[in-house]
Structures are given as C-alpha cells and as structure tokens.
C-alpha cells in the first residue's frame, strides 16, 4: 500500500494502537513488527511475500552457519550473495539481458528467442526487491567480516529485514544500526514524537504536493507531447525532473524516518540537500546516502578503493558507479547515467578543480552551476525512455535553436518555483543566523506544520507512485 493512501492511514493507526503492548515482551514485539510488515508488503501482491521470506531464511541461516563453521564461511557467504544476486538478476535483469542478447545476435544474423523463454512471472518486478536484497546482503557480509553477531532469533532478523517504513523504498538500513534498536522498546519522548510528526508532514508535502505536481509537467515533456525544441523549455523540464525525483525520494525517506521516530527508532539521514553541493564528490555524499555508502562499503572498498594506485582507484570508482546505475534499472540509460557520474568524478579527481575554484563567493557560485549542469545532464539519461530519446533531448538542451515557450503546466511550474524556494530557504538558513532562529521559533514551526498539512490535503498533485518503487 502506498504511504499516501487511505488503507495506509488505517494500517498505521492500527499499528500504533497496539504498539504500546509490545513493550514488555521482545519476541512479541518482533512478531508484531514482522506481522504488520508482511501485511504491508503482501498488500501489493501476496506472492512477493514468498520471495522475501525465502531470501530472508537463506540469509538468516547463512549468517548463523558463518559464525558456527568459520572454515566454510567463504562458501556460505557465496551462497548468500549468489542467492540474493540471483533473485535480483532474474526478476530485474533477465528481461533486459535476454532482450540485449537477442538484439545482438539478431544484428549478427542469428535468431535467438531468449526473451520469449522468460516466464510471465519473471517479468514482474517485486516491489522493493533492490532494497531488501541489499539490506539482507549487508547483514551476511557484516557477520562474515566479524562486525556483527548473527541474530539467533528468526523473528528478530525478520523484524529488521521487513520493517515496513523502509521495506519497499529504503533507506537501506544496516543491520548493525537497526538490530540493536529493535531489541529494546524505547518509548519516544515528546521531542521525538514532535520531530517524527514534522518529518512525516514534511515528507508528505515533498512527495504529494511538490513532486506529484511537478510530475505532470515533466511527464508531458518527456513524452514529447509538446513537440517543442525550445531550449528554455527543455531546461525547465530537466530541472523539473531533477527536483521531482529529489522531492519524491526525499519525501519517502522523510516519511520513513518520521514513522521510525514514532516507534522510537532512528534512521540516518538519506538526503542532505544534494543540490547545494560544490563538487560531484560532495553531491554523492548528500544524495541517497544509504545507497552510496552501501556501494562504498561493499563494492568500492572491497575492490581496493583508492588504496591500490591511481588507475585502479579510477577503475574501482567506475565499476561502482556503473553498478549503481544498473541498480536503478535494467536499461542502457541507467548505465550511461552511472557512467556520466563516473566521468565527472574522474575529472574532478584529476583536475581538483573544486578546490582550485572555491576561492570566493563568485567562483563558488560558478562551481555550483557547473555541478548542477553536470547533474541535470545526467538526469536526462536517467529519465528518458531510451538512449535515442535522451540524445534528442540533449540536442534540444544545447542547440539554442528555439526560445519560444509552449503552453506549459502552470500548476507544475508554480510548484517547481516553490520547490526551488524551499531549497533556497534552507540555504539561507545556513548562511544567516536570524533566518535559522526564525525557523526555530515555536510559532513559526507550528504555523509551518499547519500550512504544510493544508497543502497536503488540498494541493496534492494527481497520484503518482513513488519513483523509487520501480527499483
């Protein structure tokens, strides 16, 4: 069920109605979390539950046996990773690879029908599969590395794996951050309840008001409804998508964090105003932090990180970025998106231009503009339906052949401007103390809460599912 649906509202009321009764018995608490989380996940499609349970059981057992039979721990880890990646590969990538192989062989004059052999169920992408498989893999890897003790309690493990606020679209929570939290019942203080509610309202505002309203404009643009080649229009559409995906995903993460706070749990920040970065390195420290740190810890560092020489460091970074692109989707556009970011980071590392240019406010502004340009160009590939369409849009962005502005979604543009205003407001609050103090004033906080709540009810855009659900 979507976070912004009536069934979810009923679900959450029922969950918190009984949450207090899990205080005394931790097994009952684990069961309670698992039951509600399974119900939440099964609401989409009850068949997906079998996959979640199966992968969970394999990893639970693998972790225990890794600790028990250390001489076989490499094999056990290989089984766990192989199973997780196998499941992910089958449901997410088999269609893509089979189609690519068929196209390649067809080009060479051979007819293979690999794609047709994929069973119908193999073309269904279980919701959240990329998230919970990564979460589960981090558990077994950390046990293998000796950084975490395997949980002997299967309910405890499933409560961690399936915890509903983050199950289908992250943030990807590490076992060592969450397992110990759910072991104890921590009654949230009023401060935590207040911050939790604020996060939830803020998250719904970002998603339902900003992202969903901007989406109508962006979707029309990228489906080429307007048939315009206007450069300003396409930059507005690209910026629109950049903000849409940010507000959509940040909104979901905020709601997840807020719900966790109400349960007394703490999820780390997943987005830290990435569009206020002055380098691509900084951008990746602020964007989808849980995923980028996952790739850093479980792909980049094991490959050697930056410890094996300059060339190897670049290679490791490229592999990590390409895999990150592929994680987002089974399409060459996502690979190109990852590749572009790898290129940007490589150039940054070699030239060190962010450090050289960050001399004064003017050069910092130029730096920021450069970072934004690079990120927006990459988003074109992320959003476009095909490489061909992405290249057409790139042409529009840089041709400057037309400056006419066609009929545009006034509603979408209005909320795009408001969204920019939200980010600018945050930036100003970091620069000017009086703005920071003003935003922390009790009445300002209360009135902001009320206004956001009104906007969520009355100014929400037409329903769009969370973008990251497709991953």
């Amino acid at each position, binding site marked *: 069920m979507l976070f912004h*649906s*009536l*069934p979810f509202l009923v679900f959450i009321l029922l969950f918190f109605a009984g949450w207090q009764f899990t205080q005394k018995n931790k097994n009952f608490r684990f069961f309670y979390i698992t039951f509600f989380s399974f119900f939440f996940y099964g609401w989409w499609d009850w068949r997906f539950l079998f996959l979640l349970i199966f992968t969970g059981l394999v990893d639970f057992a693998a972790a225990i046996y890794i600790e028990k039979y250390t001489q076989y721990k490499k094999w056990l880890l290989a089984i766990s990773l192989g199973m997780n990646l196998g499941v992910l590969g089958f449901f997410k990538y088999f269609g893509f690879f089979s189609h690519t192989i068929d196209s390649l062989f067809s080009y060479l004059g051979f007819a293979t029908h690999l794609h047709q052999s994929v069973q119908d169920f193999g073309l269904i992408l279980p919701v959240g599969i990329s998230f919970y498989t990564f979460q589960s893999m981090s558990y077994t890897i950390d046990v293998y590395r000796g950084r975490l003790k395997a949980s002997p309690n299967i309910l405890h493990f499933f409560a961690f794996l399936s915890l509903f606020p983050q199950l289908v679209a992250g943030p990807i929570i590490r076992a060592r951050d969450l397992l110990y939290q759910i072991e104890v019942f921590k009654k949230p*203080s*009023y*401060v935590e*309840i*207040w911050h939790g*509610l604020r996060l939830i309202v803020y998250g719904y505002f970002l998603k339902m008001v900003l992202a969903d*309203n901007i989406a109508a404009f962006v979707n029309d643009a990228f489906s080429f409804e307007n*048939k315009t080649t206007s450069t300003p229009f396409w930059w507005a559409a690209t910026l629109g998508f950049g903000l849409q995906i940010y507000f959509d995903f940040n909104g979901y993460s905020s709601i997840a964090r807020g719900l966790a706070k109400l349960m007394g749990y703490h999820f780390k920040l997943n987005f830290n105003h990435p569009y206020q970065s002055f380098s691509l390195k900084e951008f990746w420290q602020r964007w989808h932090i849980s995923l980028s740190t996952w790739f850093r810890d479980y792909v980049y560092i094991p490959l050697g990180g930056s410890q094996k020489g300059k060339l190897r460091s670049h290679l490791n970074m490229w592999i990590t970025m390409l895999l990150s692109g592929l994680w987002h989707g089974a399409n060459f556009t996502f690979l190109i998106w990852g590749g572009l970011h790898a290129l940007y980071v490589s150039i940054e590392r070699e030239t060190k231009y962010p450090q050289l240019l960050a001399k004064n406010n003017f050069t910092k502004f130029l730096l920021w503009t450069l970072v934004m340009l690079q990120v927006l160009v990459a988003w074109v590939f992320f959003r476009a339906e095909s490489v061909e369409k992405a290249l057409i849009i790139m042409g529009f962005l840089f041709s400057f052949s037309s400056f006419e502005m066609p*009929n545009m979604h*006034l*509603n979408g543009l*209005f*909320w795009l401007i408001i969204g920019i205003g939200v980010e600018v407001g945050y930036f100003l609050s970091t620069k000017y103390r009086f703005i920071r103090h003003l935003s922390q004033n*009790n009445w300002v*906080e*209360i009135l902001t*809460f*009320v*206004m956001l*709540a*009104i906007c969520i*009810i*009355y*100014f*929400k855009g037409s329903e769009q599912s969370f973008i990251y659900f497709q991953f």
Partner: protein
Amino acid sequence: MGLKSHSAKLTIPTVTELSRSTAFKNSKIILFIRTYKVSYSYKIFLSLSLSIVGILLFGVCKPKQNRSIFEEDKFWTNKTYNKQKFNIVIGGDSRTYRGLNPAKLNEGLADSSLSIINMGYSFGGFSQEMLNLMEEKLKKKPANRIILLGITPLSLTAKSCSNKHLQSLKQLSATDVYLKTNIIPRYFTLLEPISVSNLFQAIVKPKVEYYDDLKENGWDGSYCYPQCIAPTLESYKLIFTNNQVNLKTIDTLQRQIKKWKTMGIKTYAFRPPSSKDMEEIENEKSGFNESFTRKKIEDAGGIWLDIPDRLGYQSYDGSHLPAEEANRFSFELGKLMKSNL
C-alpha cells in the same frame, strides 16, 4: 491588606496578594502551565489541532470548482469496473464520450428496454484490449447485442491504441476501486483537492471556463465558455505528426467485427461530428480515408451510419460537442440506427 480573622492571628491573603506571592508563583500548577506552554507536547497538541481546524476551514472556504476530481475519478472507475451488462456498448475517444448521450440515443431508438453504456475514453484507440473490454460489457445471448463505434482518425492511430488512460485505470486495486466509487465521493468532498490554477481562477476570472456533467451512463455533458476553437485546431495540426492512422488498427477492427458478426453481435460505426475545419485538418494530416475505412467495416459485416448534416453541429472547441448539441446528435443517431435495425 488582608482581612483579619477575629478568632485567630491568621491573616487570609486577598487574591491579588496571593497571585503576587512567590509561593504561589512557584506552585506546581503554575510551573506545569508554564513548562507545558513551551513543551513539545503542547506544540504537538497545538499543531495537530490547528491543522484539523485549518483543514476544515479551508475546505469550507475554498471556491467551488467546475470540475470535481472525486466525481471524475468515480466516473472513470465506474465506467471501467462496473459489472453491469448492456445491450448497446459505445466505444471511441473523447469525441465519443462527450458527444453521445446514451439516454438520448435510447429516446431516438424508441426502445426503453435497451440498456446503453458509453465506453469512450480520453485518447481512446481501437486496440484489441479496448475491443475486448467493450465485448465484456455486452449482455449474454439471446439479448439484443450491439456495438457502436465512434470512428475518429485519432482513434485509429498507434498512440491512441496504447490507451494510456484505460491502462492507468486498470492499475487500480480492488480497494482503490471501492474507495473511488463509494467512499471518497460520498464522505470526503470537503477535502477535495484544488489546483493552484483553479484557485487563481476563482480570484481572477479565467479566460476560458470548462464545465463537465458526468453521468453514470458514461457520457460527459461538457461545455466550454467562451468557445476555444483556435487552440484546439492548432494542437490537432501537431497531433498527427509521426502519428498517422494505423492500417493494422483498421485490420484489427475488421477482424473483430467479423468475429462479432459470428457471435450475433451487430456492429455500427460512424464518424462523430466535430467541425468543418477539424475534418479538413484530419483528412489532410492524419492519413485517414473515410471511404476506405467505411468499406473495411462494411466488408466485415458492420453497418456504417451516414450522419445527416454532420457539419451542422456546433462544437465548442472545434472537436467536441457541447451538451445540448450532443443530446440533439444522440437523438438523431438513435433514429438513424432504428431505421437500420
């Protein structure tokens, strides 16, 4: 000064003296009130209660909209998921669902025993999926079973045959269907969303106002004031770029009509009225050949209905008929069908 008690040396302080005393100020009650006022529980209570008040107040004060999002959702969801079966099922795109009122069609047919549903969709195309959906809505034998197709050039293009509108409706879960048709339009009208542009239009009179009267029979009695013909015609000049009438769609239609004929289902087809300028654009830019399409349908066993004075109807935007004209057209079409039954 306080009152002196005669019976003892105890002095009873006045209220004023009491309120000024340090003891009173430090009393637990005052401490609680003071700390509560800056406490987080107070903030939570105030935020939630003011939010509820604000939401209700806004709901009451917000301007009325010409188009209700909840009613629209109910209209489309009901059309797609209604389990009722009908004698006559009408199919097509927006020109059909706005231009054909089943109630008036029935009057023209002069047979009140026939039940009719308008299954037109926005940007609707005659894909196999759409044709199957129309067939599902028909009553089982031995009832009178008729399919009525509003053939526009756009409905025969590949883009329309992707039927995005229908696809989005098919994604709804059973819970969503129930909520959209029963709960939300009935109990949540106060909380109906409004777009910023609609809010703005309530303050500043819009240049063009649209009205919709959504009926359970699948018809949308629409109107636009003042007429907005030029922009629509301009958009139609572009709509057929890389999106011509698809011969495969006509073949699909032909095969289906033949199949329906063997099943005892009569098929009627017509070109919905729009405007002279629109037909010129369509004939020139869409690749549509009316006589060719008509022949294909007739060869398959369908009946083509020649609309008398097709260009004599007044459209509000060059493409769609306003409610009164749609009623007039529906009645005439009914009479025409009756003469062909």
